[in-house]
């Protein structure tokens, strides 16, 4: 790393030119290790997706909302975005090619309407990750979108067990 922790070099080129001084940090393994390593494997991923669906539906039912169901095309699109985030080393909703969540759903053959998408770069499991999203109002609104009927849960595991989650919510 070029700059040492806490190094302050103030010479911002200004307007629309500074990077955010209080931006959140990247993940570190030390911080996550307190929770133990949670490995998603090809063998258990179907169960992982099902557990996420159940968790979300329990949460939605508590809010009086209709359930959602996993959709194969949305799962494929979400898996693609999880991998794309790992490749970009960035938790966000765009592909390296600039694709948005609706773009990717359409490409995967999904014919409904994407309502929103949540992502997380973490060592947390799917249940913890849904809880994490519930903790932010804008993200909770996606989980609790009354119009939601179908979801895709994608995950990509790095060799070091870091997980890249993508939850695409659609009707």
């Amino acid at each position: 790393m070029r700059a040492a922790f806490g190094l302050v070099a103030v010479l911002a080129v200004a307007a629309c030119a500074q990077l955010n001084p209080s931006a959140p940090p990247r993940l570190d393994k030390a911080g996550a290790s307190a929770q133990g390593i949670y490995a998603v494997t090809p063998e258990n991923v179907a169960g992982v997706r099902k557990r996420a669906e159940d968790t979300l539906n329990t949460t939605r039912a508590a809010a009086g909302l209709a359930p959602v169901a996993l959709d194969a095309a949305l799962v494929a699109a979400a898996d693609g975005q999880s991998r794309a985030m790992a490749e970009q080393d960035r938790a966000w909703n765009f592909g390296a090619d600039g694709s948005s969540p609706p773009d990717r759903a359409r490409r995967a053959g999904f014919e409904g309407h994407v309502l929103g998408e949540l992502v997380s770069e973490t060592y947390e499991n799917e249940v913890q990750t849904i809880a994490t999203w519930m903790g932010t109002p804008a993200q909770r609104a996606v989980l609790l979108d009354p119009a939601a009927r179908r979801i895709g849960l994608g995950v990509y595991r790095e060799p070091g067990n870091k997980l890249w989650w993508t939850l695409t919510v659609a009707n």
Partner: protein
Amino acid sequence: MTHSLTRRGLFGLASAGAATLAAPTLLRAQDVTTIAPSAANRHNTASFRSQRWQDHFQSLRKGAILCDLESRVLHYWSEDESTYLVYPSSVPMSEELTRRGYTEVVLKRHSPTWIPTPDMRARDPDLPKSIGPGPDNPLGTRALNLSWQYYRIHGIDLVEKIGRPASNGCVGIYNENIERLFDLVEIGTQVRLL
């Protein structure tokens, strides 16, 4: 859309929703931002919400731009709805620098010259007087002036700013995207910052 992020250079620049950190670190725009690891940081999250123009505009007369500052996304609908664009954007660095509401495009600037506003100069007297067109120009290759003084939708000098809180109030998008948007919008195109 290529995107030459230096991996090591982006520690500390993750996206929305993650735990915030105590020690603010101000760095030169060209430099890395580095923040000490923290046990409190267990995830970096982000979210996207789809948008319908009908929820924000009465009509699409002259087209409409919606800047969703929460999702860090710019949406554009053309007047006849034949074109709908969704682009990731930079957003203001702080709530204090954030202005929300309805405005419109009042001026289209090709290869704009960047001049710091009085507020920016007050915060940093060492700013250059101006930066002409070129790779170091914070406005990138095109700028759309809004009816609010000093607020613009523009291109970008550093791609790392896209999808991150990096502006003094403006909304920046990739240069290739502002170049496409520039050709589609007209004076009077409606704009909402949400």
